[in-house]
């Protein structure tokens, strides 16, 4: 989301009304991001609340106004992951792969159609990369900053995430790359 650079600069310099305005314009995106991790409204609101508080406390640390949205989303993801960890709701890779294997043989077409379920079944880093790229419309560079990894890794993560998504949604739509990693 593009914001007026002057408003962001004002927020960084301590203008609380400017920051409040920015957070309100980002609230839906932040909430939806939080929700995709914690899967229920109450917990998503909790994560959202923690994100807002953290943003208020540390907005002065933002160095480049351009990266305000990147910085904010990064806080949200970190809060969501910390919440899951603290509540022991984090699903580990092995479990995900086991679940995928089961799903691939038993899932019916209706389940396969459900892209949000498919997204949920992806390991966290793939889901995060896909949501940042295709929901937040972040550039590869911005995603690299949020995920703290090289841009080349982001590209590969995106492509592999899409391929895994395609596998989960097999038969529902054609993937132009038609890539199969197995």
């Amino acid at each position, binding site marked *: 989301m593009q914001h007026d650079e002057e408003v962001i600069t004002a927020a960084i310099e301590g203008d609380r009304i400017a920051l409040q305005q920015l957070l309100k314009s980002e609230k839906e995106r932040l909430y939806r991001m939080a929700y995709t991790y914690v899967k229920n409204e109450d917990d998503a609101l909790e994560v959202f609340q923690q994100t*807002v508080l953290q943003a208020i406390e540390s907005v002065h640390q933002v160095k480049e106004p351009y990266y305000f949205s990147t910085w904010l989303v990064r806080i949200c993801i970190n809060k969501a992951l910390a919440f899951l960890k603290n509540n022991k709701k984090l699903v580990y890779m092995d479990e995900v792969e086991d679940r995928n294997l089961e799903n691939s043989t038993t899932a019916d077409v209706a389940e396969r159609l459900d892209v949000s379920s498919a997204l949920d079944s992806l390991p966290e880093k793939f889901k995060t990369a896909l949501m940042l790229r295709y929901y937040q419309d972040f550039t590869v560079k911005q995603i690299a900053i949020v995920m703290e990894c090289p841009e080349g890794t982001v590209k590969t993560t995106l492509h592999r995430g899409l391929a895994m998504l395609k596998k989960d949604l097999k038969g529902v739509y054609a993937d132009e790359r038609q890539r199969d990693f197995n």
Partner: protein
Amino acid sequence: MNDKEILIKNAMQNIKVPEDRLESIIDDAFYETSKPKKNKRKKWLIPTIAAAVLLIGLFTATLSASPVLANYMAQVPVIGNVFSIFAEEEEGLIQYERFSDDVKLTQSSNGITISIDKAVYDGTNVTFTYTVTANKELDDSAYLTGFPQLLEGEGPAGSMDWKLAEGSLIGINTIPHLDEEAAQVNVLWEPKSLYTDGGEIEGDWKFEFAVDQLKTDPIILDEINSEGGVSIHFTEVTFTDVAVNVAYQQLVEPALLEIWEAVEVELMAADDLGNVYLVPYNGGTTYAGARTREDFSWTATMRGLDPLATSLTFYPFGHVSRMEEGKEPESIRIEFDALEINMLEGTYQIIEDPEFPVYDEEEEEKR
């Protein structure tokens, strides 16, 4: 924006947002943090306010395609100018306005009128524009669901891009289809609904139209550059009135995949006038006889070539990467020899160990 992007966006949009509660949280946060600091911050109680309800529009579909409607649409100022409007932000689209054919198909259902405006097929991509108008001005949450496809293709594929212009939704759809032999291709598009944050309106629209291929004269290439266990095989480049299309394969040594997982070979380009171009790929497919799972055939399309340029050089580069659970992801970049195309003579030559051009960072950020 491609089909998966839209699916992801849809999935995210389907999450109901308790807007009032979010507003309260923000307001309370600013109120709380304006107070003198306490030693310990209390855990907040989330106010319970009814969640916002997404209204789904349910109307009886009424399909019409009449001269009256066509006349009405002709008066919509953005009609006929979609490429130009997008060209204000994206280089290289203005040629599409000039060389595309008029389609002028208009249908209306449930108060939503969709008009297919112009289309062009350059042997690699079919690109067409459309405009959507409603009884009231649309907001920037609006987009159409339902992916177009080619009767000659294998299911939906490609990308969709849209924006709001003067209260109407305008968009460009692109479907990749590499076939220089096809004099004509046929597009089928049945948009399912118009989505907005205020509700989703389903309708009954169906468009079928043929698009003639622009005259193309591909330069057949057969050049293989190898580096670090990965090879790029240039097979063809086509200079059309609207874009430059290049086809290539990536070939990967099986031994490389014992260590690494994924390989992506991409291109950038520069002309003899010093202009640097991104060459985004349209998509890749595996092919018969591929030695490894990472062997792909790609097509990539470059727009906005300076008309005064007489040569164009492609700079191939790739990323080899692996991601193991519990470990930091790793990737290495490979740079290949470049391929210079002489556009006047239709010849090409390899440039060994080239200095890679730098693409304007600001332009890249806009992507």
